């Protein structure tokens, strides 16, 4: 686990994944912003991607289906919220326009010579969940209450 991942986990509801890509920034940005490129790597392993709509501008919609290796289809519906070429792309992401978004994703591109550091930040929409449920304290607290209640019911 990288130092960055440790920091992000302490921030409750964030998932951060970072990678140095051995390609200049302009081309890396293009791989994310050009629909011709995305289908070639978006995957992940064993997955195929079909893009139905890709409107790369603020407020534009990106609709794609990820086809899993077991034949399961995963629909994705995203709306771009910020674009700053060549350094940042933000979008809200969910499964359909009728549902609330699950995440806010930010992908940032930092030039490092001929390489590019790409940083993905996923912010979970379910903030309450992350702040209150993942904390083991909350779960354990619930468990203790349960035990107390059981004792009470058993007349202990």
């Amino acid at each position, binding site marked *: 686990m990288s130092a960055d991942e440790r920091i992000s986990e302490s921030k409750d509801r964030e998932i951060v*994944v970072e990678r140095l890509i051995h390609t200049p920034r302009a081309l890396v940005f293009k791989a994310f912003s050009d629909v011709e490129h995305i289908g070639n790597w978006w995957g992940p392993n064993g997955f195929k991607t079909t893009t139905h709509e890709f409107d790369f501008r603020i407020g534009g919609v990106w609709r794609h289906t990820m086809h899993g290796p077991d034949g399961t289809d995963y629909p994705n519906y995203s709306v771009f919220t910020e674009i700053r070429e060549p350094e940042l792309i933000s979008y809200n992401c*969910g499964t359909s326009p009728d549902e609330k978004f*699950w995440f806010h994703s930010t992908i940032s591109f930092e030039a490092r010579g001929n390489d590019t550091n790409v940083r993905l930040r996923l912010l979970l929409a*379910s903030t309450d969940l992350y702040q209150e449920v993942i904390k083991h304290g909350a779960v354990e607290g*619930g468990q203790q209450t349960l035990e107390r209640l059981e004792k009470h019911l058993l007349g202990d």
Partner: protein
Amino acid sequence: MNSFTALADSTRRDIVSMLARKGELTAGEICKRFEMTAPAISQHLNVLKEARLVRMRKDAQRRIYSLNEAGISEIETWVAEVKAIWHERFDALDDYLQKLQGKEKRNVRRRKNQREQG
């Protein structure tokens, strides 16, 4: 329905945080906190139960709800999966761009050679 689909709804998220704070609540107590009909809340509770985010036990006429650790650990697993997906994605991106540039360099070389020869 998985945990995250179940939590895509704000009422269901509120119910889960409420249970995280209080430990246990009856269906009636949960209902009182929302401006919704009992059947609507009951439907939300069923979705949460099916997603294994909450547990229900009956005590005489009362239905008592609490968090279900199985669903919670499903969320932690899910976070790990999301990370794995992005690591794979970055691997594929790096490979793809390497190939693309190799090809571009070769094309440039070929064009250059053609020019020199022509």
